[in-house]
């Protein structure tokens, strides 16, 4: 009986600790996705400035250098851009696919959505300005995400284990 209780207690603490570690890991992931977005925009800018590549092709080339959920989201946006019969469908696709990305705040998503929606409507200088402003904003978001991660990651991990211990003490 005692052995069973010990095993259950261990499992509860391990599970709670695992949840805490996952939560802390999510903070790192936010930073990686934001950095991916910056990489993506820089590559798109190069394609537009030096090759004047059309947007769907520029997105596809830039997409090859990103990872995580952003790669899949951009892929779906490209498909909808090529199939689109109206601008409305393209804009909807951008909102839906970027909103699905996890581990980002609403503000992170809105910034990226507004950059992507604005591209393609003006001359090269306008595209450069849009992308540069977007990169500056995302770099600030990266700093914020990094600071938040440094200050809270350890807390989340410890809280996980502590909550597990509390549950064990109260119920077992």
């Amino acid at each position, binding site marked *: 009986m005692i052995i069973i209780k010990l095993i259950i207690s261990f499992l509860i603490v391990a599970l709670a600790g695992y949840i805490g570690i996952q939560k802390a890991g999510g903070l790192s992931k936010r930073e990686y996705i934001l950095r991916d977005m910056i990489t993506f925009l820089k590559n798109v800018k190069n394609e537009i400035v030096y090759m004047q590549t*059309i947007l*769907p092709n520029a997105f596809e080339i830039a997409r090859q250098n990103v990872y995580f959920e952003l790669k899949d989201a951009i892929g779906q946006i490209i498909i909808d851009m090529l199939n689109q*019969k109206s601008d409305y469908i393209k804009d909807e696709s951008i909102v839906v696919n970027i909103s699905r990305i996890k581990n980002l705040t609403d503000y992170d998503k809105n910034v990226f959505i507004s950059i992507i929606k604005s591209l393609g409507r003006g*001359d090269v200088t306008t595209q450069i300005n849009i992308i540069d402003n977007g990169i500056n904003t995302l770099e600030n978001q990266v700093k914020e995400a990094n600071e938040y991660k440094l200050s809270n990651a350890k807390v989340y991990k410890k809280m996980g284990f502590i909550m597990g211990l509390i549950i064990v003490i109260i119920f077992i």
Partner: protein
Amino acid sequence: MEEIYKVLPEILTQKIKNIGSNTGISEIRLRVNKNCIVITSSIEIVLEYIVSLKDILDILIKVSKNSIYSIQNDINNGFIVINGGHRIGICGEAVVLDGNIKNIKNINSLNIRVAHQIIGCADKILTQIIEDGIFYNTLIVSPPGCGKTTLLRDIIRQISNGVDYLKLKGLNVGLVDERGEIASVCNGICNLDVGLRTDVMSNISKSKGIEMITRSMGVNVIATDEIGTTDDVKAINYAVCSGVSLIFTAHGNSIKDISLKEGFDKLLENNIFRNLIILSNKNGPGTIEKMYKLNNDDKLKNVS
């Protein structure tokens, strides 16, 4: 016409298809807040469709595949060539910086010219401009809308492919297509047949294009449309000195008209062109009004 329908609004596409004479359509004119006008070979049809500013913008977005910056140079030149070789002329407010057009804003009208080619329209004059298997310098003169570009295109095609019955082997032709009307190059592909051995330089001034092609492409013949400036004449002289043959067109009604243009009188005096063809619209576009040939006395003689 399918490529044009892909870029037009769906309702407008349906109205144009309902006209029923799609093969005869030569132009589709779109002006903001005005009815769409379709021009066929025989009549002008005013559709019950009012074009909006959004329609114009949607067309540009579809043509550029959501990338207006990628067609900015074309917009500044006043026309875009789409798949199929069709040309979309653009009108709006020019934004000028340091004497150059930086942009055209508030685009308010489009003129979609349907590309078409008449294969074989040069057959009747080939016997005059090719003798003993040799092609001789030719100048085609006509007012606008008389078919000189269509005729030029077919001549280029035939001399590039070779003309067996006239013992002319295929020649390397360098085509300077300043406004994209002759070969209708889109994304690097010629949408109209200009022959097997033709190299096309598009979206470049005629004078620069002639010099570049003469220097770098090892061509036998240089061809271009609507020569007229002093820079063009200088470039022609450069090409002549390089030993290439020439086939050009120019605006005018007669030899007297073109001899009034600066530099042209010298070209005619120096007998650069062995053949001179004057076109008109008398019996429809492509009517050969007069044909002149250089005789043994180095004088242009009417042979029509």
